[in-house]
């Protein structure tokens, strides 16, 4: 992990550090995001709908997701006869991998030895913008490879939706990068020692959050897997553990988006008294709660409303916000 850079460690130390970091992030995301996230989603959904949610497996249903995973492991693995087997099978790997690649640049906290981050890339924000949109490739592969009409429509919708919301998200990212004068996520967190960027840039924060919900295909932007019209969208044909891997990808991506929002706008791991990692987790779960809250508050958009909202509202507002911020920064710095 991002410990203080000693003068050129031997290559095998670097290699093992990278491998250990990867395993740590993968297992962390699988447990914290996918397992606990699914449980939390079901509990909060239940709570908001005045029902109990999972309750019987373990104390208060805590072990429900683990039971589900074990169940899914025993399920048969079906590849439809008409499907393009290679694309169908490889999509399962692309989606979680693309989601997890985001975590490379997220600073989870800070330690005596330096920031707790897999790798502090000097173009971190741009890297995040690039990897977070890679998921669409996997979704499109799944949709196309299934040779199923529901899956194909889901995949295509996802493609047009994710590329449309990519642009307002990029504009929000650029605004932050401009204020911080850097694309490194660690430096951006450092730049928020005074004010959080959510306070300085509420509009960019709002745009980022909306675009993030759209990028992870959640309600009200869940046209991709609109269950009342498309069965399960792009993963209609996937069974058992493959289905679970898509879930891992979705929840991994959702947590990555929330983590990035925390990093860029909510001061990252900064906070008084409590240890930094704990602050990060608290902020992360607060945002995740907002995502789940939104899910049970708004009805689903129609596809034309969805795309109009991106192109005719978010992008002009994002551009205007960028120009006004740039002007403000220029005047202040004179």
């Amino acid at each position: 992990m991002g410990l203080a850079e000693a003068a050129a460690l031997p290559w095998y130390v670097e290699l093992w550090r990278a491998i250990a970091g990867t395993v740590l992030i993968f297992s962390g995301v699988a447990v914290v995001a996918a397992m606990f996230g699914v449980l939390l989603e079901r509990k909060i959904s239940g709570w908001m709908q005045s029902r109990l949610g999972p309750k019987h497996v373990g104390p208060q249903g805590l072990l429900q997701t683990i039971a589900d995973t074990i169940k899914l492991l025993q399920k048969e693995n079906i590849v439809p006869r008409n499907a393009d087997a290679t694309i169908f099978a490889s999509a399962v790997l692309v989606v979680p991998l693309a989601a997890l690649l985001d975590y490379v640049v997220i600073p989870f906290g800070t330690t005596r030895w330096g920031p707790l981050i897999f790798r502090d890339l000097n173009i971190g924000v741009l890297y995040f913008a690039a990897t977070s949109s890679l998921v669409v490739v996997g979704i499109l592969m799944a949709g196309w490879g299934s040779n199923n009409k529901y899956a194909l429509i889901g995949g295509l919708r996802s493609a047009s939706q994710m590329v449309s919301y990519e642009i307002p998200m990029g504009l929000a990212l650029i605004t932050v990068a401009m204020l911080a004068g850097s694309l490194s996520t660690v430096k951006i967190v450092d730049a928020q020692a005074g004010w959080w960027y959510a306070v300085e840039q509420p509009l960019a924060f709002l745009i980022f959050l909306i675009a993030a919900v759209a990028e992870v295909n959640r309600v009200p932007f869940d046209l991709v897997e609109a269950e009342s019209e498309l069965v399960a969208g792009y993963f209609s044909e996937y069974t058992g553990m493959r289905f679970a891997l898509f879930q891992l990808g979705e929840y991994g991506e959702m947590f990555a988006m929330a983590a990035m929002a925390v990093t860029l706008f909510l001061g990252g791991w900064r906070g008084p008294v409590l240890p930094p990692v704990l602050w990060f987790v608290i902020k992360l779960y607060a945002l995740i709660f907002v995502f789940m809250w939104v899910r049970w508050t708004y009805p689903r958009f129609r596809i034309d409303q969805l795309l109009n909202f991106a192109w005719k509202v978010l992008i002009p507002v994002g551009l205007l916000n960028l120009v006004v911020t740039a002007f403000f920064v220029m005047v202040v710095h004179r």
Partner: protein
Amino acid sequence: MLLDWGYVAIFAIVGTLLAAMPLLVIWLISPRSDYPQKFETYESGVPAIGQAWAQFNVRYYLFSLVFVVFDVEIIYLYPWAVVYRKAGPVAFYDMLVFLAILTLGLVYAWRKGALEWV
């Protein structure tokens, strides 16, 4: 710099292996039973009519096309944003011209009806 990308490459390789592990597990332990109906394409219970690889709405393509234009232009904004504070007012006016062209493109696509879903 190269070391950074080495880390990312290792993350991608090890990550792929980790993501493939559950697939290996199900390959070993999941049950298999063969009957032809199971491998039919799912279409709400009735036999699937034709292939899914058929014509679909061209709008999806159109939006991707507009996206490519915008995304390429947005890439140019990243380096500008990083050096903005050091570069002074000239950077602001330069980018104003650039953003004006970008906005012109958006207005053009809008007026041409490329952003309408019909």
